[in-house]
């Protein structure tokens, strides 16, 4: 054998050596992630240090502040860091929360349908459809939103009196919370469906059969046994969807209206027609001001908040799944 494949068995590719090489590769990947986290927080530090907790508070117009921050970094004057990000944070919460809530409801029903109730032909159609919807690039969703959904909302759903009532504050052109939430829902629901249905399929058949044998109908059996046992998968899918929704930048930059504004639910139903701008699109829109040091710090601070909240959700999901491990289903 040694004569046949000398290079493969020579000392150059000995097992120990390969193991060390692969180990080094793995360490490099881990190191890269740590370096990234460290870099983002170090770069963000000046912004947090100058603002303290008021970074997350409300006050003034974010656009104005970002502009001041950017300009202060160009001249020789002292850097300005004052930034109150509440409008962006609130918009992120509203859009992510709305989309995840709707997507959770839809995905649960659709995955139950796919796993249990859909006839064979329907299942064969739905599974590729879900995979397709998950793989459509976000910029295409954004384009369709801008060219179809936004004009539809602006021309047909928003009434003239509604436009007039907020004319002095903001213009309702269709770029709105509603458009952002609806499109984001379509983007994250397929992700949830695929993870949910994997979880539902993993439920032990014996448990379902036990329930059916007691005379419980199939619908109740699925909801009371399968969906409950599959809860870790549901948590996992939801967490992934939340992370995706928080980090979505380009599509939301296109349809959310890109105005730093905090829609107020207390104003009545009109708030869903109001434009806003979440955190991630703010980075995209202000990317050209990276050259100004204080603006650079502010954008990295936004990135740090995104990173931190994504990590927080992952942790929550992990804890929740650990707590549910006793139900016997794995996710």
């Amino acid at each position, binding site marked *: 054998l040694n004569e046949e494949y000398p290079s*493969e*068995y020579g000392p150059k*590719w000995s*097992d120990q050596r390969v*193991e060390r090489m*692969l*180990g080094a*590769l*793995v*360490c490099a*990947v*881990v190191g890269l*992630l740590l370096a*990234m986290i460290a870099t983002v927080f170090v*770069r963000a530090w000046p912004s947090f240090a100058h603002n303290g907790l008021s970074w997350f508070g409300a006050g003034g117009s974010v656009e104005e502040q970002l502009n001041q921050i950017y300009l202060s970094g160009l001249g020789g004057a002292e850097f300005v860091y004052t930034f109150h990000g509440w409008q962006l944070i609130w918009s992120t919460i509203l859009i992510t929360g709305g989309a995840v809530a709707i997507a959770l409801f839809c995905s649960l*029903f*659709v995955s139950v*349908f*796919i796993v249990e*109730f*859909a006839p064979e032909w*329907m299942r064969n159609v*739905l599974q590729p*459809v879900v*995979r*397709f*919807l998950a*793989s*459509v*690039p*976000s*910029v*295409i969703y*954004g384009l*369709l939103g*801008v*060219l*179809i959904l936004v004009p539809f909302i602006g021309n047909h759903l928003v009434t003239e009196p509604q436009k007039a009532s907020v004319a002095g504050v903001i213009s309702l052109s269709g770029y709105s919370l509603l458009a952002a939430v609806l499109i984001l829902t379509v983007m994250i629901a397929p992700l949830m469906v695929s993870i949910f249905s994997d979880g539902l399929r993993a439920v032990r*058949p014996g448990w*379902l059969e036990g329930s*059916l*044998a007691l*005379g419980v*109908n*199939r*619908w109740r059996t699925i909801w009371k046994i399968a969906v409950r046992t599959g809860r870790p998968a549901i948590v996992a899918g939801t967490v*992934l969807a939340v992370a995706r929704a928080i*980090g*979505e*930048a*380009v599509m939301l930059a*296109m349809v959310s209206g890109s105005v730093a504004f905090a829609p107020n639910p207390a104003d009545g139903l009109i708030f869903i027609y109001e434009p806003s701008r979440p955190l*991630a699109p703010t980075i995209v829109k202000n*990317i050209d001001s*990276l050259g100004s040091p204080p603006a650079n710090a502010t954008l*990295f601070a936004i990135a740090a908040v*995104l*990173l931190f909240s994504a*990590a927080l959700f*992952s942790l929550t999901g992990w804890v929740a799944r650990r707590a549910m491990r006793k139900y016997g289903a794995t996710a």
Partner: protein
Amino acid sequence: MEASIATPPAAPTPPGKAPRQPTKDAVEGSATWRLSDRIGLAICWALGLLFCAIAVAIVIYLMIKGLTYLKPSMLVTPATAGFSQSQSGGFSDALLGTLIVAVMGISLALPVGIGVAVWLVEYGRPTALARVTESTIEAIAGIPSIVLALFGTVIFSSTTLGFLSRSSEGVVFGRSFFAASAMLSLVALPLIVASTREGLSAIPQHVREASYAIGKTKIATTRRILLPAARPQVATGAMLGLGRIIGDTAVIVVLLGATQNFAPVGSTFPFNYLRGAGTTLTNFVYEASPTGNLNQPEKAYAAAFVLLLLVLALNAAVDVVHRRARKAGTWSH
């Protein structure tokens, strides 16, 4: 008494796991259910059909718009400055850019991804490092791509990596195909690792033992037996990763964009283009949409249609690989 047993409860036969195709009379219909349960089933049907309708609407709408506005000349002419949509050329640079980014990104992500997956499944010592690596891969999957892009600006604007992009008077711009591909390979990495791992761990232990028994080393076993056996999963992972790379916009806007044409730097042929800024289809669609700088919706539709075709082709390829792998059968234990 006779009457009470005349209508026995509908015998619910277990739907059964193994034969996923129960015969018609074996499955209890919804006729005996309570109204609330039947409404639930109706919601299931409605939402399932809604998903299908959305997908069909996206494909058909983009197909109609794409076929209306897409001219073959757009695929071969680069974008030029012009006042109307008929004067401003096509998006050949964007199409080429997408291919360049896809090839470079995946050729960086594939070896690294396979390496990490092989280490995780075949070596995985010390255990603590293995656990950390698993969390790392999961974390990379959860990081928003815009954050990756910002990190990329830090790396590639450093003077040590200045040779990878345009620089003048000590200021490195950090926008190049190198920068964008390197960061996009991180987007694809988790998918490749997960898929390859799945493939490797599905191979039963006795296959490895048989190989060791005839004197093969671990790495020879991995290279000659395990990786070829896991090829469908590796291919699936690569294609899923490719889809993510092609579809990503945030990284491109930050690390490559700012132009709709190639902006070569220097003169050595392939590297001058790779070092320069450029564009991809996603970036072109973003800029050509009404919210972008170009505002040419017709071109945006045409480019989006081409992009969608690429994505559909990738999806179809994944399906073919899956079907082939299933036909090839699974390992017997």
